[in-house]
């Protein structure tokens, strides 16, 4: 598995998360994002989840209002990539409890942290849900309580 990028965008084409596993300059990134949103959002429902784009394979899946979309190397396994996306959704779900787009908007940094526990350099680092959840849990232990949170200034 050699993932080049992972994008989360809404049905309206708003980018919610972007992760680049190979170096690209900002201009190229923007082009990828534009092409991906155009291509994926333009697909009729119940199409297959795979596309070719330049020399990459694109795998995407829609979960409620969010599209999860990743670019793979030419020889990579599309079905497994689909399950990478699913496992990521499961991890988000486990952390947020019934995850929705708003959770990812308001806690974008958490979405990145969870992704980092799961993928690294475009490769799957840990496939065990229990292990990943445990380490996220552990890092949350290092953080403050709700009470502390409410006492923080609101600006």
């Amino acid at each position, binding site marked *: *598995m050699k993932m080049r990028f992972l994008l989360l965008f809404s049905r309206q084409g708003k*980018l919610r998360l*972007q992760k680049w*596993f*190979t*170096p690209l300059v900002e201009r190229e990134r923007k082009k990828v994002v534009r092409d991906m949103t155009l291509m994926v959002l333009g*697909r*009729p429902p119940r*199409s*297959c989840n*795979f*596309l*070719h784009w330049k*020399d990459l394979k694109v795998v995407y899946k829609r979960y409620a209002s969010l599209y999860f979309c990743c670019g793979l190397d*030419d*020889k990579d*396994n*599309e*079905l*497994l990539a*689909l*399950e990478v996306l*699913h*496992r990521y959704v499961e991890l988000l779900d486990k*952390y947020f*409890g019934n995850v929705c787009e*708003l*959770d990812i*908007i*308001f*806690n*974008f*940094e958490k979405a*990145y*942290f969870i992704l*980092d526990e799961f993928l*690294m*350099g*475009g*490769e*799957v*680092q*840990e*496939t*065990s*849900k*229990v*292990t990943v959840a445990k*380490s996220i849990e552990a*890092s*949350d232990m*290092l*953080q*403050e309580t*709700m009470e*502390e*949170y*409410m006492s*923080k200034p*609101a600006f």
Partner: protein
Amino acid sequence: MPAVSKGDGMRGLAVFISDIRNCKSKEAEIKRINKELANIRSKFKGDKALDGYSKKKYVCKLLFIFLLGHDIDFGHMEAVNLLSSNKYTEKQIGYLFISVLVNSNSDLIRLINNAIKNDLSSRNPTFMNLALHCIANVGSREMAEAFAADIPRILVAGDTMDSVKQSAALCLLRLNRTSPDLVPMGEWTSRVVHLLNDQHLGVVTAATSLITTLAQKNPEEFKTSVSLAVARLSRIVTSASTDLQDYTYYFVPAPWLSVKLLRLLQCYPPPEDAAIRGRLSECLETILNKAQEPPKSKKVQHSNAKNAVLFEAISLIIHHDSEPTLLVRACNQLGQFLQHRETNLRYLALESMCTLASSEFSHEAVKTHIETVINALKTERDVSVRQRAVDLLYAMCDRSNVQQIVAEMLNYLETADYSIREEIVLKVAILAEKYAVDYTWYVDTILNLIRIAGDYVSEEVWYRVIQIVINRDDVQGYAAKTVFEALQAPACHENLVKVGGYILGEFGNLIAGDPRSSPLVQFNLLHSKFHLCSVPSRALLLSTYIKFINLFPEVKGTIQEVLRSDSQLRNADVELQQRAVEYLRLSCIASTDILATVLEEMPPFPERESSILAKLKRKKGPGMVPDIEEGRKDKNVNGGMEPISTNATTKSTPSPSTDLLSLGSSPALSSAPPSSSAGGLLVDVFTENHAPAAPGVPMGPVADDNFSRFVCKNNGVLFENQLVQIGLKSEFRQNLGRMYIFFGNKTSTQFLNFSSSVICQDSLKTQLSIHIKPADPTVDGGAQLQQILNIECVSDFVEAPVLSIQFRYGGTLQNIAVKLPITLNKFFQPTEMTSQDFFQRWKQLSSPQQEVQKIFKAKHSMDTEVTKAKIIGFGVALLDRVDPNPSNFVGAGVIHTKTTQVGCLLRLEPNTQAQVGGPERVLACALACARCRAVPSPNASLSPSLFTDVPSHTTDKQGHCIAAAL
């Protein structure tokens, strides 16, 4: 404000995000952001030192603003400060900011590296992981320089926590991809390989990714990983679904690890050790079997994970390309998927079958699905699935089904999506040319293409039809008649006018006898299209007109009048004006003889790789076009212009006619081959510099991994690494051979100073004569370069020549040396004979120098059909029912060299008793040879009197070869 589910949300951040979301317009959003930026800037600049929490919150806000798509030009320093915080959350945000917004500011990088260094040596696994993630996310060269030496140590240290090991493995992988030169290898190689044995499946998963990447670059060094990977895989596929606990994904045991292991094994040829090979075959069979079992869950995740492993196993089977039964089974399972109700599976089945179609073992099995694939083309609702169906039809096409496939593609073209039309046009053009039995059909097909999709017919396509018509005189009359008829249509595509103009200008005389297509009618027809055409087409038509003046003196007056008109002579376009003026003068002053010489029929075009194929490859990148011939024996592929090519050079004297018809923008028509004189010179200069080193010992190790696979076959991939793939296609007849070498640039960067040479060591120089045509000095990223070797076997030989290539890739000079599979058996001509003849001769060849016998263990189980195929591939005739013992195989053939011919008899005696129960069998193989002294004709049958005097090393080598092949 939405509730924050848990943890440490930053209240100020949540309020800010919510404000942004409430903005009614883009302007309001920008206003809010600017307000926030001003606020943060003042906080950062303020006299009061910010506490860690505030710093974290503001840095996080900046990150949010950046991710919204706005530029951020400050805050980097504050983020770097967060890195050295002792609070995990602060450190984490700092690292996130750096990862997303890395800046090449060198001062900052030094500070960041310092912080990372501290965290790496902190022995706190959470901190170490953050640091490793940052290195992997940024992956810059500076970071590689700073840490490439430390990470391997962390990876293999005994006391490193599992989670850190995982991060270290993948971090190293990332650095290896960006700066391979900085990652030291060697001392820790074997310890990394042994991570495959680790208790922790997460560690194994991460390590497998790393090893796969490293093994692609250095297969030799990581060879021991094969047996470990097979062992690991075997344990996974045979485990019950609960054995692996949390590594079981929807009842599928460790799908990620399985796929990675299967991918690792694709870096290597089939294992040589029979036990490992057997174990791997068992694994693959188990995977194929499990795919047939009823699902353990109705969830799509279950079927996806299971099939992901299945497809990867099929990829490995195709990669090995050595087990016909597995290949055919794979093909059958994919066949079932072709009609599966899941669109994804149909898509993937079509995609996988494309590669199966190129294996000689499964090509026929793939062809049986043609109706299903055609149906997919007609009924699939999803364009990306239809696209795969087109690809598969292209891959499965051969002479037997070309008419059907081309007809279906043309049909589909009428309604095809615009995005894929050009590609379909190219594919149709290639197939029609390659497998045409009847060239009238070819011409019809191309004209149909222009009619249906004229806008998508690129220059390469119509150049090619003209090249073919010019080189084949049997089709010229038909072509002239057909274009003439096609041009009658009231609206025809400009490309048709170009083809029509060119062909009538050359061969209009062939139909001029018919009053319906008399010279004047032809001219009027073409000229009626003239004013609707673009400048290049008009220029071409003007050339047609001057050719008409030569062909048909009776229309000279009419044409001169047209040329003389103001719209031509005073045309605003310089090219058109010049042509009109020059052609007019030429027609006025030149005698008929001169005209006939100047405007002579075009000489045949030299043979070269179809420019259309090159275009398709450029369009899709090398990996995407399954080379329809690669690996598949198909000797009947049209040699196109082969017979004419030899005299082409002599005929193309610099007569002005070649120049007249070549337009400014027509590279394919200009008679200069791709390596023009300047290019050739470059190659010469290069070889001059480097050739002196070559005749000695070739630099570096000579790769011969795939060498033995070619003993019995002529096509396939000879060599492959990260950068380049070398494929071969060769044919041999008597003592002559021609080998096409394809160099595929797998990268997206151009290779510079490319040169290749063939080195014959010592005595081989006199035994084998090899001519290599110089190649282009550059190979574009993703492109393929073809080079042709002409081989003559002068006398018998033992060693194989070495192909040595050099090129510059990204500043470093790459040297690759590969043994070229030119073995003596390639020069076999099979000879049939009766049982009586065979044994009579066999007995006569009994002196020790005339016989060689080898007893060896078969590496694989003996399958009769495979063995037969190998013997035929070896080059001799397989003599059926000649040996009284039905389990023996016998063959006969004559080795042709320039100086002599040697008859050889071969007998292979499988001894299945030698090791009952084991998969290995012991074989005895004997070869008897004789040098033919008197040769009445090249196809002389072997007569007993010829079998005398044997060169013993010849036979010995053959014995080795066949032993290696079996």
